């Protein structure tokens, strides 16, 4: 339902944006903006929703490419790619510079190569070494010790023939059964690509093919492959698991920024960079700080959760059952603001004062006690508004349900057709989108330093807030199929939203 509107708004913007844009950013070339959607829409984000199979294919292509260039097994290629965020070019470059160092940092080889070879920095020597290891980073001891000679395993203390032993590039040799039990123990704990050699203080990593050669139980093999796949995806900077419950989709984008990705399968929207709920204009670190603070201070903020307030004029108890913060007392018809309880009539001009927190200019000279109280007051101001818009979003969802019933009865009574009333749903969807952004402007403002930039931000925030409440008011009371007025209001609200994002949403890709 969202997408229709977005399309509409985008095409609308193309024509009308320029005046607004110039107002804030003189000296920018407007033609570029008209051509490039990345600059016209601050939330524009190109991404793909891929399945596990798609990703496996994508990763395997990288692995195969590296195999061909370096002549190594897929298993070792995976270790190298995992270590280098799947950047083939970086791996090949490092390999050509100093193959030995590459193998050591990727923990394929131990730091000092006393075991099979003298240290060598030439790529040829290192690849010769890999070939001696069967190009895979592990070997049975058969090559070093005659197969018929028996050897003692340090883990199970049993003597067995040489061909029952396996070792990695470090040369630490253990029997097949011990490796197998060890792998299963590690897999059981959720460890896969990070399984290390069994020897004490040895950090050489066990490549996938040795694990899969020795672990034969299908359950354990499956588990290993699942965990390894997770590690591969997490190490790839362009891939993110969809955070939706039980969703298997992986989102891919070459733009690693705090933009919103919406999963095509489960419709979960999230910030591509940090995986949390989308949080523009606030950036990832700040929203994390804010959410942690809210969780820590949840006790203090609890009293705010009131659903009822007294009418400032007749003092009758009023319950908030819609999202709009422009309240009208059912008893005395007084119009007031739910947030600050101020008169709505003067609110239009002074709305600025409602969203903004007025810092005490003398705070530095006050006692520690007063400063602490002031800090709490400031936090509660922002928290209250953050929380209120979050609640309004939920209440407006209920409004849409009521709207549906109302429209239904109107259509049944011959007042308009379903098509005539559709615009109201579009308006409600746009309202939700705008209010969502508004909610996330509060943590942004809370952490902002005082100054002219904060003044500009708060000015735009207040403008957005005013238009959103107007839109909410109009949607709740829409009685006709006349859309002119509402469409105009939608337009203004969305324009305020994009202007704010354009000026303050960090686009840092």
């Amino acid at each position: 339902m969202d997408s229709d509107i977005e399309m509409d708004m985008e095409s609308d913007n193309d024509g009308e944006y320029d005046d607004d844009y110039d107002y804030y950013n003189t000296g920018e070339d407007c033609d570029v903006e008209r051509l490039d959607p990345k600059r016209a829409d601050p939330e524009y984000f190109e991404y793909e929703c891929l399945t596990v199979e798609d990703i496996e294919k994508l990763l395997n292509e990288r692995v195969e490419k590296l195999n061909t260039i370096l002549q190594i097994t897929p298993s070792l290629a995976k270790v190298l790619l995992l270590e280098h965020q799947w950047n083939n070019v970086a791996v090949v470059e490092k390999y050509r510079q100093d193959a030995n160092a590459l193998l050591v940092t990727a923990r394929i080889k131990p730091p000092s190569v006393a075991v099979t070879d003298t240290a060598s920095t030439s790529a040829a020597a290192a690849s010769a070494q890999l070939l001696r290891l069967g190009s895979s980073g592990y070997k049975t001891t058969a090559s070093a010790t005659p197969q018929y000679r028996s050897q003692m395993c340090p883990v199970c203390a049993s003597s067995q023939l040489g061909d029952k032993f396996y070792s990695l590039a470090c040369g630490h040799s253990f029997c097949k059964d011990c490796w197998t039990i060890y792998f299963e123990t590690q897999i059981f704990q959720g460890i896969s690509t990070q399984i290390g050699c069994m020897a004490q203080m040895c950090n050489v990593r066990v490549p996938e093919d040795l694990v899969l050669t020795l672990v034969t139980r299908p359950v354990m093999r499956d588990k290993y492959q699942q965990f390894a796949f997770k590690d591969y995806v997490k190490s790839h900077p362009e891939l993110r698991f969809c955070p939706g419950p039980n969703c298997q989709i992986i989102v891919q984008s070459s733009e690693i920024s705090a933009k919103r990705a919406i999963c095509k399968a489960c419709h979960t929207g999230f910030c591509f960079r940090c995986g949390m709920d989308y949080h523009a204009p606030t950036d990832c670190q700040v929203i994390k700080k804010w959410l942690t603070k809210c969780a820590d201070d949840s006790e203090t903020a609890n009293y705010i959760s009131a659903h009822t307030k007294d009418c400032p004029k007749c003092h009758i108890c009023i319950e908030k059952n819609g999202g709009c913060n422009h309240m009208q007392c059912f008893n005395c018809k007084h119009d007031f603001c739910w947030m600050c309880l101020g008169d709505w009539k003067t609110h239009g001009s002074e709305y600025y004062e409602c969203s903004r927190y007025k810092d005490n200019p003398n705070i530095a000279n006050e006692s520690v006690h007063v400063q602490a109280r002031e800090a709490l007051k400031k936090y509660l101001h922002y928290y209250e508004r953050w929380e209120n818009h979050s609640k309004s979003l939920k209440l407006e969802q209920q409004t849409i349900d009521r709207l549906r019933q109302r429209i239904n009865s109107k259509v049944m009574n011959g007042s308009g057709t379903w098509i005539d009333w559709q615009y109201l749903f579009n308006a409600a969807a746009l309202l939700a989108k705008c209010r969502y952004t508004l909610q996330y402007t509060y943590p942004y403002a809370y952490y902002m330093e005082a100054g002219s930039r904060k003044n500009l931000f708060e000015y735009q925030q207040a403008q957005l807030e005013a238009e959103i409440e107007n839109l909410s008011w109009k949607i709740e009371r829409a009685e006709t199929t006349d859309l002119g007025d509402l469409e105009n209001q939608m337009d203004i609200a969305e324009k305020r939203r994009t202007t704010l994002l354009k000026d303050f949403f960090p686009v840092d890709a």
Partner: protein
Amino acid sequence: MSSLPRRIIKETQRLMQEPVPGINAIPDENNARYFHVIVTGPNDSPFEGGVFKLELFLPEDYPMSAPKVRFITKIYHPNIDRLGRICLDVLKDKWSPALQIRTILLSIQALLSAPNPDDPLANDVAELWKVNEAEAIRNAREWTQKYAVED
């Protein structure tokens, strides 16, 4: 109970035949996975002269998982808490199946010689060890005399 793995038999034999100086580990007569351990306080440490009793148990999946070791004798040490639990990396994430009872007990002995208050288990002890080492060492000596010296 399942038969004792060869590894445990071997380790036990070696512990009896070639004991580590200052360490004595004897399997319980009813349970070969349970060891009665005695570690003597290292020279030039505040634990010198003390005889510390420990218990050591080899879990079912040993050596894939680490032995469980605990001090029975009370000890004033920043990495050992009131219940005798020991904070030692080789007993936790640095455990490797190639490590043995012998190496673990040696590590514990080394921990008595070199307490590490930056990785504490007993917070109050570690705190004192950091701000007033002389007093902490005095306390450790006192405890050693009080709890770890047989009359």
